[in-house]
C-alpha cells in the first residue's frame, strides 16, 4: 500500500463507520413511531432533534410520493410528530431546526405530492424562515395550492409581501389562489358563492378584468361594474353584480341605482333590486323602497321578497297599502311577509288599528255610528298574522276580539295570535269561545290556546280545571267529550278524577264512558294511570273491565319513561278476575319494551290458565326486533326467557328467544 492509500483508507473507513452508525441511528429513531402516548412521542421527537440536521434530512429523504401505499409510514409519522412537537410552546429552537429541514427537503423534492406533504406541515409549524421556499411553490399550478395554504396559515407581513410579489408574475392559473390567500390574511369577508362562476376553470378575460378592478375599489371600479347593467351577456352582468359586494357603502350602490333607473328591461331592474337588498347603506335602502312603486310587478316582487328589518318599517305605508289593496293575491302575500319581517312596534300598532276599527267587538253604542266596510277575510287574517309576528301583549285585546269574527279562518288566526302574544287577561274570552266552538278544529285551537295562556299560571290552570270538571258532572253525551278533552289538555289529578267519575256515570252512555277511558289512557301525567287502575275496583261489566285493562296498559306504555310499574301497574294483576282479563293484560304488557313491564308479566308464567300467553308476552316485551331495537338485557329477564324457552313447545317462540339470547351474549 502506498503512502496516499495509507492516509486515505483510514479516513474512508472512519467516514464509512460514521455513516453506518448514523444510518443505524435513523432506523432506530424511526422504529419508535408511532408513539403510544404523549411521553413516548415527545421522547422520540426529542431524540430526532438531538440527532441534528443530518438525521432530519435523512428522514425527510425517505418520504415517498403519494402513490407509495404507506411504504414510508414511519418517516411520515416522524415528520408529522415533529411538526406537533416543534410547534409546542417552549420548543422554538427545535422549531427553527425542523423548519429548515423541511424547507431544504422541499427544495430537493421533485414530486409535487412530496412537496405538498412538507408544505402541509409548514402550515402547522412554519414561520418567516419558510416563506421564501413556500413562495417558490406559487409559480406552478401543481404546487400553488399547498404553498399558498401554508403562507395563508403563517399570515405574517413577510408572507403577505411574498404573496403580493408573486401575484404580478405567476401564470394566470395560479393568481386566484394567491389572491384568496391575501384576502383571508387581510380578514376580508368571503365572496358569496355563485353557481359555476367560482368553479369555472377558465374564467373569461372580461371576468378576470372585473376581479382585478374590484381590488382597486373606489368610484371608478363601481362605475365600471354598474356599466354591466346594459351588457347583453347575463353571465358578465351577474359577475359584476356579485363583485359589487366587495365595494361597500354608497360608493358601490349609487352607480347601480342610476343604472336601475335607466334600465328598460324589468328583469334587469329586478336583478339590481335583489343585489341592493344585500347592502346596508341608506341609498340602497331608499332605492329598495322606491322599487315597491315600480310599474312592473317583477320589480315590485323583487323588492317585496327581500325587504325586511328597518327598511320594511320605513316602507310600511306602501306595504300596508299593498296588503289592503293588492294588485294581485301574490303581491298581498309578499307585502304581508315583508311587514312580518319589519323591526320596531309601529307595524304591530298599525295592524292592530286596522283590524280593530272593523272588529265586531268595536261596535259602538253611539247614535249614528256606522260601522266601516269590513276588509275581506283574507285581509283581516293578514292583520292578525302581522300581530302574531310583531305584536306584543299590549295588542292582545285585538285577537281576543277577533274570536267573534264571522269568518272561521280569521278566528283560527286569532287563536294563533293569542298563543304567542296573549296573557292572563285573555283566558276568559278564549274559554267563552271554547264553550261556543262548533267545529272540531276551532275547539282544538281554543284548547291549545288555553293551554298556552295558562302554561305559566298554575292558579289560572287550576281554576279552569275546576270549572271544566264541574261542567263535566252535568254535561250531556254531546257536550261531555269537549270537557274531557279540555281536562286532558291540562292534566293533573283533579281532572283525572273527574274523568274517572264520568267513566262510571249512569247518566252517560257507554260510548261516552269509552271516551273517558281513552282520554285517561292518553293522560299527560301519571294521574291518569292511577285513576284508571282504581276503576277496576268499581266496575263489574266484563266488556268495560277489558277496556279499562287495555287503557291501563296504553297509559303505562305512553309514559313508559316515567311509569312506576311496581306501584301502578303490577297491583292491577291482583284485580284480574278471569283468563280473558289476564290475556288482555298480558297482551298490553307485551307491547311495552321496558323492564318494569316484563317484570309485571312474571307472576303469570306459572299461572296454568295463561302460562302460554305469558311466555309470548314476555318474548314480545323483551326480545330484540332488529339491529336498532335490541330489546332488554337485564339478567333477571334473561333468566326468565331461558325458563320460558325450556318449557315451551312453540318452535317459533323458542327460536325467537334463542336469537335474542345469542345477540345479548355477542354484545
Amino acid at each position, binding site marked *: 500500500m502506498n503512502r496516499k492509500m495509507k492516509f486515505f483508507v483510514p479516513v474512508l473507513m472512519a467516514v464509512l463507520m460514521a455513516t453506518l452508525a448514523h444510518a443505524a441511528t435513523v432506523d432506530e429513531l424511526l422504529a419508535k413511531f408511532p408513539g403510544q402516548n404523549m411521553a413516548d412521542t415527545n421522547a422520540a421527537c426529542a431524540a430526532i432533534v438531538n440527532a441534528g440536521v443530518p438525521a432530519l434530512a435523512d428522514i425527510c429523504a425517505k418520504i415517498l410520493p403519494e402513490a407509495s401505499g404507506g411504504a414510508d409510514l414511519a418517516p411520515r409519522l416522524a415528520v408529522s410528530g415533529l411538526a406537533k412537537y416543534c410547534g409546542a410552546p417552549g420548543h422554538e429552537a427545535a422549531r427553527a431546526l425542523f423548519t429548515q429541514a423541511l424547507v431544504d427537503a422541499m427544495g430537493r423534492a421533485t414530486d409535487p405530492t412530496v412537496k405538498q406533504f412538507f408544505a402541509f406541515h409548514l402550515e402547522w409549524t412554519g414561520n418567516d424562515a419558510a416563506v421564501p421556499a413556500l413562495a417558490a411553490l406559487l409559480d406552478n399550478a401543481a404546487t400553488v395550492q399547498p404553498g399558498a395554504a401554508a403562507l395563508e396559515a403563517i399570515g405574517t407581513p413577510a408572507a403577505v409581501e411574498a404573496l403580493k410579489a408573486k401575484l404580478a408574475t405567476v401564470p394566470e392559473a395560479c393568481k386566484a389562489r394567491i389572491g384568496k390567500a391575501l384576502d*383571508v390574511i387581510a380578514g376580508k369577508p368571503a365572496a358569496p358563492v355563485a*353557481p359555476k362562476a367560482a368553479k369555472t376553470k377558465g374564467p373569461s378575460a372580461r371576468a378576470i378584468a372585473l376581479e382585478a378592478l374590484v381590488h382597486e375599489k373606489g368610484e371608478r371600479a363601481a362605475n365600471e361594474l354598474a356599466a354591466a347593467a346594459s351588457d347583453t351577456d347575463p353571465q358578465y352582468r351577474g359577475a359584476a353584480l356579485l363583485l359589487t359586494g366587495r365595494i361597500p357603502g354608497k360608493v358601490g350602490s349609487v352607480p347601480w341605482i342610476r343604472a336601475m333607473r335607466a334600465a328598460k328591461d324589468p328583469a334587469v331592474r329586478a336583478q339590481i333590486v335583489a343585489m341592493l337588498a344585500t347592502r346596508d347603506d341608506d341609498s340602497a335602502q331608499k332605492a329598495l323602497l322606491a322599487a315597491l312603486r315600480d310599474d312592473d310587478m317583477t320589480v315590485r316582487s323583487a323588492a317585496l321578497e*327581500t325587504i325586511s328589518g328597518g327598511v320594511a318599517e320605513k316602507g310600511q305605508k306602501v306595504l300596508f297599502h299593498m296588503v289592503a289593496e293588492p294588485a294581485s293575491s301574490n303581491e298581498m302575500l309578499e307585502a304581508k311577509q315583508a311587514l312580518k319581517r319589519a323591526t320596531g312596534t309601529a307595524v304591530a300598532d298599525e295592524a292592530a288599528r286596522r283590524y280593530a276599527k272593523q272588529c265586531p267587538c268595536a261596535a259602538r253604542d253611539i247614535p249614528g255610528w256606522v260601522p266601516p266596510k269590513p276588509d275581506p277575510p283574507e285581509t283581516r287574517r293578514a292583520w292578525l298574522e302581522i300581530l302574531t309576528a310583531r305584536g306584543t301583549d299590549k295588542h292582545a285585546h285585538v285577537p281576543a276580539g277577533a274570536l267573534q269574527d264571522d269568518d272561521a279562518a280569521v278566528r283560527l288566526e286569532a287563536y294563533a295570535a293569542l298563543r304567542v302574544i296573549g296573557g292572563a287577561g285573555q283566558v276568559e274570552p278564549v274559554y267563552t269561545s271554547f264553550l261556543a266552538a262548533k267545529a272540531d278544529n276551532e275547539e282544538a285551537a281554543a284548547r291549545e290556546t288555553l293551554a298556552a295562556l295558562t302554561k305559566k299560571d298554575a292558579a289560572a290552570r287550576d281554576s279552569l280545571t275546576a270549572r271544566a270538571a264541574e261542567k263535566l258532572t252535568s254535561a250531556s253525551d254531546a257536550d261531555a267529550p269537549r270537557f274531557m278533552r279540555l281536562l286532558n289538555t291540562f292534566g293533573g289529578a283533579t281532572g283525572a278524577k273527574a274523568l274517572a267519575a264520568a267513566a262510571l256515570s249512569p247518566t252517560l252512555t257507554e260510548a261516552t264512558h269509552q271516551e273517558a277511558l281513552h282520554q285517561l289512557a292518553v293522560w299527560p301525567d301519571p294521574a291518569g294511570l292511577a285513576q284508571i287502575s282504581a276503576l277496576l275496583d268499581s266496575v263489574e261489566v266484563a266488556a268495560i273491565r277489558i277496556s279499562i285493562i287495555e287503557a291501563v296498559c296504553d297509559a303505562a306504555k305512553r309514559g313508559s319513561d316515567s311509569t312506576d310499574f311496581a306501584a301502578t301497574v303490577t297491583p292491577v294483576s291482583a284485580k284480574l278476575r278471569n283468563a280473558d282479563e289476564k290475556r288482555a293484560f298480558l297482551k298490553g304488557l307485551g307491547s311495552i319494551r321496558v323492564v318494569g313491564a316484563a317484570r309485571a308479566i312474571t307472576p303469570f308464567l306459572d299461572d296454568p290458565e295463561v302460562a302460554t300467553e305469558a311466555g309470548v308476552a314476555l318474548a314480545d316485551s323483551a326480545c330484540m326486533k332488529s339491529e336498532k331495537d335490541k330489546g332488554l338485557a337485564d339478567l333477571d329477564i334473561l333468566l326468565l326467557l331461558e325458563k320460558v324457552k325450556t318449557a315451551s313447545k312453540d318452535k317459533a317462540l323458542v327460536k325467537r328467544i334463542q336469537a335474542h339470547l345469542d345477540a345479548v351474549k355477542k354484545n
Partner: protein
Amino acid sequence: MNDVSKSTPSRREFLSRSAAAAFGFSIVPRHVLGGLAFTAPSDEIGRAVIGVGGMGRGHLGYTGARTVAVCDVDKGHLKSALDSLDKGVKGFGDFREVLALPEVDVVHIATPPHWHGLISIAAAEAGKDIWCEKPMTRTIGEGRRVVESVQKHGRIFRINTWFRFKDNFYGFGSTVKPIKQIVDSGELGWPLKVTVGSTTGFDFKFFWSGKTDLTPQPIPAELDYDFWLGPAPDKPYHPHRVHQTFRGYWDYDGGGLGDMGMHYLDPVQYLLGKDDTSPVEIEVDAPQQDADAVSSWRRITMRYADGCEIILDGEGKSEGQPYIEGPKGKLYKGLRLEINGQEKVLKGLPEPATQEGDFYSCVRTRRRFALNESNGHRSCTLVNLGKIAVQLGRNLRYDPVKEEFIGDEEANRQIFQPMRGAWRV
C-alpha cells in the same frame, strides 16, 4: 318574541347574490315564473337535501316539508334518490344551483362534515333556513362563521341531533329531561363531573378509523371527486376516503368523536348549563395520530372555569363510575341516584324550561330552534377541541370568550384551516 335581524331576507327570497344571473337565470321569484295568476301555496315549505348518499336519504323522509330538489356529486346516489321521489323533484350536482331555486325554503345538509360550514353559510346568504347534520362544522373557525352568517341573515338553523329535548339517551336508559331535573335540583352539588363512555352507555365507534396504506385508484365515472373534495386537500382518490368511511380521515371528519360527539356531548352541555361557553382546559391521553388517518384515543378530559368536567372515556375503564358525579351525589346509568351515600328517588321536581323541538314550526313562526347555531357551535366546539388535542398530542388551554387557544400558536392554526381552491369562509 324572537327578533329578526334588520336585514333579514324572507324565506321565499330568491338568491340575492345574483349567482343565478351569473348562470343565466334571471332573479325572479317563482310567482313571476308562474305567471300573473300564480298563487304561491302560502304554508308549504319547500325542502332541498344536499348529500343523498347516506344520512341524507333519511332526511328525505322527514315530515313537515315537501322535497323539491336533491343534490349529490355522485350521479349514482343522485339517481337513486330521484327514483325514490315523486316526479317533479329536481336533481343537481352543484349545491349552488339548489340555493338559486326560489321554491327552496329550507336546505338539509347531509354531506361529509368538511362541507357543512361552507354550505351553511352559502345557504344563509341565499335566504334559506338550514337543517344541518352533525358535526356542525369540521373546525371551530367555520363554526364561528356559520353563527355570524345565520344571525346576520336571520335564518332558522338546527343541528340533526335531538337528545337534549327528546328520545331515550343511548344506553343511559332515560331521556335527558329527568337528568336535567336532577341536576337543576342541586341535590348533586356543584361542580359536576360527567363521564361519557361505554360503561355509562356511549360508544365512541373507533371503527371509524382511517387507513395509512391507501394507493391511488381510478375515480368512478359517476363521482365528481374534485367537487367531493371541495375545500379539502387534494389527495388521490381511494374508495376508503369517500362514502361512509370518510369519517376516518382528519381532512373530512374526526373518526367516531367527530361522527357521534355532538349526539353525546350536546346533552351534557345542556345539562351543565354551558350553552354559552366552552372548557378552559383540555387534557388528552392518546397514541400519536397520523396526519391523514384518524385512529383511537384513550381519554379526553375537558374542564370548565367553574370546575365542571366532561370525561370522554375511550377505553371503557369507567366501570362502576357514575354518569354524573357531584360533591353531594352521584347519578348512574338507569337513573339510579345516590345522595350522600344513600339511594334516593326524587319526585315532584320542576319542569325544565320548554324547548322548541319542531323545526318546521320554527321556520313558520321564526322562533329559534332548541339546538340552534349558537349552542350547536358550542357543543361542536367540544368535539373540535377534543380533535385538536388528540391530533397535537398535548394538553391545551382555551379562552372561551375569544375562542382561541392560550399560548399555543400551532393549536390556533387549527381554528381556521386553509381551504383548497376558491373555497373559503
